[in-house]
């Protein structure tokens, strides 16, 4: 309730479209203390680490030439948007990255801070902040090497704003990792009916099918906001074994790796034949 109050106070002062949905905040607040029970409500998110951490790690390793023994992500600054209780921030921190985790639900940040406080290595490498993405844009322009938005975009109010903000805080050629849920009949049946109502894999009411994001839509939004989509892969949860695996089809859950255009490419983003030069020039003025 406290965080809702803070949110409403801030609202008149924000100059940009907000991507935070107040209904969503309420939902997660109720479960704030359940994050770290590996067999509790968030069990599926815990086991998702088994595929999303290697995905992030291996993609970043393949793009860099330095390798620090024992700390493969050493020197990399990562922003974990919608970090919740820190389930993904902690493994990334253990692998050597400097992680900033943000989440609009204050109880989540409190839980995350408490959990990392017992491990001096993590306490130093991870910083948590109760904030929406827009709120940190001004002070974090082109600050991060990597943004991770895992199981987040299906909860935001305005996806395009969200992606624009990601672009602003990401360094040129920085990486954006997204995992989310497709909007299909299958995802309605399995993702909502079975997962929430029947099997209780996900707490009921967590997801709204209307807000699920089809990969084509996500790709379109990314590409039109200065990102190049490098990888897109489907993910599958096996409720019997409690484990995730990769699959061809993006019909249910899927993961995306996109790279922000480099500094050179950005300023020449709309290199076009001379006749249309003037119109293009004025059109891009607002977005450069």
């Amino acid at each position, binding site marked *: 309730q406290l965080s809702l109050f803070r949110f409403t106070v801030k609202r008149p002062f924000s100059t940009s479209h907000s991507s935070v949905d107040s209904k969503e905040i309420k939902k997660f607040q109720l479960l704030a203390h359940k994050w*770290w*029970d*590996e*067999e*509790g409500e968030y069990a599926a998110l815990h*086991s998702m*680490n*088994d595929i999303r*951490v*290697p995905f992030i*790690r291996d993609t970043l390793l393949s793009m860099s030439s330095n390798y620090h*023994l*024992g*700390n*493969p992500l050493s020197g990399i600054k990562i922003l974990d948007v919608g970090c919740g209780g820190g389930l993904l921030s*902690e*493994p*990334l*921190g*253990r*692998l*050597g990255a400097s992680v900033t985790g943000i989440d609009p639900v204050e109880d989540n940040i409190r839980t995350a801070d*408490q959990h990392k406080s*017992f*491990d*001096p290595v993590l306490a130093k490498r991870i910083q948590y902040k109760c904030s929406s993405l827009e709120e940190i844009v001004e002070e974090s322009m082109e600050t991060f090497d990597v943004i991770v938005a895992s199981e987040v975009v299906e909860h935001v109010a305005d996806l395009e704003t969200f992606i624009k903000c990601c672009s602003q805080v990401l360094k040129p050629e920085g990486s954006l990792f997204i995992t989310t849920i497709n909007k299909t009949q299958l995802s309605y049946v399995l993702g909502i009916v079975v997962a929430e109502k029947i099997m209780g894999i996900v707490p009921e009411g967590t997801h709204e099918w209307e807000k699920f994001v089809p990969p084509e839509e996500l790709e379109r939004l990314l590409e039109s906001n200065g990102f190049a989509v490098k990888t897109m892969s489907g993910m599958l949860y096996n409720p019997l074994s409690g484990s995730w695996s990769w699959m061809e089809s993006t019909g249910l859950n899927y993961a995306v790796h996109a790279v922000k255009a480099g500094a050179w490419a950005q300023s020449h983003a709309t290199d076009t034949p001379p006749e249309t030069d003037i119109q293009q020039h004025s059109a891009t003025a607002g977005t450069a």
Partner: protein
Amino acid sequence: SSAAMAALRGRALLAPLGARLRAGPRAPLRSAASAPPLYDVVVSGGGMVGSAMAAVLGHDIHFHDKKIALLEAGPRKEYDHMPDSYSNRVSSISPGSATLLSSCGAWDHVCSLRLKPFRRMQVWDACSEAMIVFEKDDLDDMGYIVENDVIMSALTKQLDAVADRVEVFYRSKAVGYTWPLPSHSCDTSPWVQVELADGRRLQTKLLIGADGHNSMVRKEADIKNIEHQYDQSAVVATLHLSEATDNNVAWQRFLPTGPIALLPLSDTASSLVWSTSHEHASELVSMDEESFVDSINSAFWSNTNHSDFIDTAGAMFRSAISLLKPSGTAVRQLPPSVAEVDPESRAMFPLGMGHATEYVQHRVALIGDAAHRVHPLAGQGVNLGFGDVACLAHHLSAAAFNGSDLGSLKHLLKFETERQRHNVSLIAATDMLKRLYSTTLAPLVLLRTWGLQATNALPPVKVSI
């Protein structure tokens, strides 16, 4: 107070969660300034298996920046060269175990100190002519007889090599453990607390119990242990042979009182492991050296336990096999005869079997004799332990590379499943063999005679052993 509230909430959580939790004192929160040092892994027990665990993790690339501690109650053991006489505690090291020791650089030290490879193993019955011979087709070494002190010295050297990651606490006995709640509440430490005899305290994300068959880690973790004391003790000694020989065969004969084994140490020396009744073992250890040597030779050579019936039945079975499978009966070699025993080398220790019902709990794993204890007749004891080390190290390495919490049950359970699957059948088979060979009753002798002969004739069964 909030600490009491947290504790109450914690106990309420305990009820529905079941078998993997345990009761016991909880660690209170300490301020960061006074908190005991935090390690990623603490190995309790610096014997061959515990030291190997610490050394292998210390040499693992994904543990490069991690902190490991090894707790050993005894003093440091290191030799630049071995004394002339052999130690009476030796182990049969399988090629798999040699590979593990090689992976952390210890095998080179073993080879430069001393060891004896053997090519062949002959196992036979005292009550019949039945015999089984194990031999690798490609004339490779089947295994190695190595003194335990040699292995310890090699591991100590390799622990020194990674001293920046592995801290070894010699003459340090753990006297108490305090366990965390699995999904911890705010006010209690999530780590395992270890208290040493001198009052020092450590914290760790994962505690590995390698503290032997009377494991304190296992007992404090309330893990049930299925155990059985055999009515047998093992007598060990270092023997000198009557004449120098190639000595690359390991011999084991099943007497009604228990198996007697001769393990090669050099061309002129062998190690004795004789499992027999407690009374007979005491007699053997206290009798004069000449009588002792006579007993050994008689145990290997005499045929007093044969009965005509069994001999005939056995011979018939052997002819039947040779009709079906001409190469299925092997040439019987004669074991060497013993001339002398090293004075002061005779010792005895009681035998038993044990198996922990669980190998892991939240932030705890058991390896080696702490998890399982077998009869020496199969020569597998330390090899099972090294197998545990290889498996657990593999899973911990992957977990570290995934940024996982090292004490998480998720990967610990994978280790438990893999090793229990492997160990249980071997321990059960060893126990069954021990019982089968402890009798002179004709039907059982016939059964094992034919069984041994059949096993000898069937390559696939022999290979899997």
